[in-house]
């Protein structure tokens, strides 16, 4: 078996005296669909921020595609191929949808390809079309509904041509049908070869999506394995429902 795409070894993060993450070990293989769950405050978002470079880990190391990531600023990690969607969508409000998607095309995609894309405008249209927002390409994010905002967020993350997509609660607050929409979109991206880590509270979506499940509780990884086995594990059930 080849080396994993993402390797996290002994990762720790503390805020003052509060230990947010300790001794996290994680491997993600190329093309895998990983679900990351845990109760509120268990450190999921902190882990995402440490992987993406928004926060710096105090201990351990992160390796991605053969590159040591520790100390690299967020934009360098994006250029190496890690894209993340934000828990609350964070579009660029004064730019149109097309321009929103254009920013990562100009700043992340071309660096990876070593050249400016032949036709950034077309790539931008392709991406908006993929998420069904092409008709609104010239509108501003303020005109979008909640689910459209999530789709824009996904289109923008995909514009950096990532190898690994980290979807941080991309479905929170959406209706049943809308969750299925986003789920289908993520499955399609995975079909195109993008490795995906999904952080989610909606168990139905996580179980349908994940090939493997990782559970964080109070900053520690307590389980890692087949989703159906994991959700029956007593300590996981206890963490969610109390013992």
């Amino acid at each position, binding site marked *: 078996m080849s080396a994993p795409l993402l390797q996290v070894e002994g990762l720790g993060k503390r805020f003052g005296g509060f230990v947010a993450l300790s001794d996290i070990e994680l491997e993600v293989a190329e093309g895998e669909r990983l679900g990351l769950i845990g109760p509120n405050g268990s450190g999921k978002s902190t882990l995402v921020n440490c992987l993406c470079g928004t926060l710096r880990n105090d201990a351990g190391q992160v390796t991605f595609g053969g590159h040591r990531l520790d100390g690299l600023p967020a934009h360098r990690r*994006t*250029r190496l191929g890690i894209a*993340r969607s*934000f828990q609350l969508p964070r579009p660029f409000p004064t730019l149109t949808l097309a321009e929103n998607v254009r*920013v*990562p095309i*100009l*700043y992340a*995609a071309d660096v990876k390809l070593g050249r400016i894309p032949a036709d950034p405008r077309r790539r931008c249209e392709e991406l908006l079309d993929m998420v069904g927002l092409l008709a609104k390409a010239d509108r501003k994010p303020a005109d979008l509904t909640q689910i459209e905002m999530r789709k824009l967020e996904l289109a923008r993350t995909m514009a950096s041509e990532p190898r690994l997509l980290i979807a941080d609660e991309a479905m929170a607050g959406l209706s049943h049908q809308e969750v299925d929409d986003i789920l289908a979109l993520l499955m399609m991206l995975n079909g195109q070869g993008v490795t995906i880590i999904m952080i989610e509270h909606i168990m139905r979506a996580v179980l349908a999506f994940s090939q493997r499940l990782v559970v964080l509780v109070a900053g520690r990884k307590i389980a890692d394995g087949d989703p159906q086995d994991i959700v029956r594990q007593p300590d996981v059930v206890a963490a969610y429902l109390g013992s």
Partner: protein
Amino acid sequence: MRNLLFILLAIVAAVATFAAAKLIGNAYVFFAGYVVLQYIVLATAWNILGGYTGYVNFGTAAFFALGAYTTVVLHKTVPFLPLPAMMLVGGVISGVIGLGMGYLTLRLRGTFFSIATLAMAVVAQTLITNWNFVGGSRGAYIIRPASSPIFPGDYIQYLFVVMLLLSVISVSAARAIQHSRLGYGFSAIRDDEAAAEASGVPTLRLKLIATALSGGLMGMAGAPLPYYVTYLDPASGFSLSYAVNTIAMPLIGGTATWLGPVIGAILLGTLQQVATVTISSALSLLLVGLLLVGFVIAAPKGIVGWFTR
């Protein structure tokens, strides 16, 4: 290609402006016009950092005065140096100071950055006030040459033409940036810095480019000042009114595009000159205040905002 066309059009507009000023035949037109042109450069320069990137700089006067004092130093040491060369030196010095200031302060956001720029202006003014070589608090006298070195006419006309060219350069640069990869990066930083980083935008590097460019252009705008006023002292060179006017102009015109600062500078600059001559110079600052309050309430996106959604 479109940039080239724009520069050509801008040069045509500049030639027309000069011809019109010549036709009026009143020497004061050049005096007043110089100030308006200087504000076009200052407002455009401010907008590269303040409008495109969203970092409000209160230190305009510092960059401007550094350019002016560079000329004072050069005038005393290498008086034969032509004015455009002095402007280039002033621009480089202010640009480098901008870079340094940016490196120290750009980790601060919002109001904190603005306060830091204001503090920097105070520090620079204190240093200049205590530097005897450039006159200290007494100020420096510069003897203005009588006639223009390149065409028939007096030196004020020459200064007018130089500032006209500098406005063409800075407005063309600002417009080119707005439609470039750099411009998209600046907008992304203004809208959401964390999302910009996540999109691969090297935010710190881009902000440093913006402060250096902005500071450099301000320095170039200040470099001819000693020849214009012939007496320069720290209090007038570092006058807060430069900072206030330079912020007011893009806000009135609209900060999102290159056109806003130009409209704001022409409108407010001309109004101030007219008010100074016809009523009083104190009134011109009052005018800025009233207009600013009016626009913040009635047209927060400036004049350009009326025509765009």
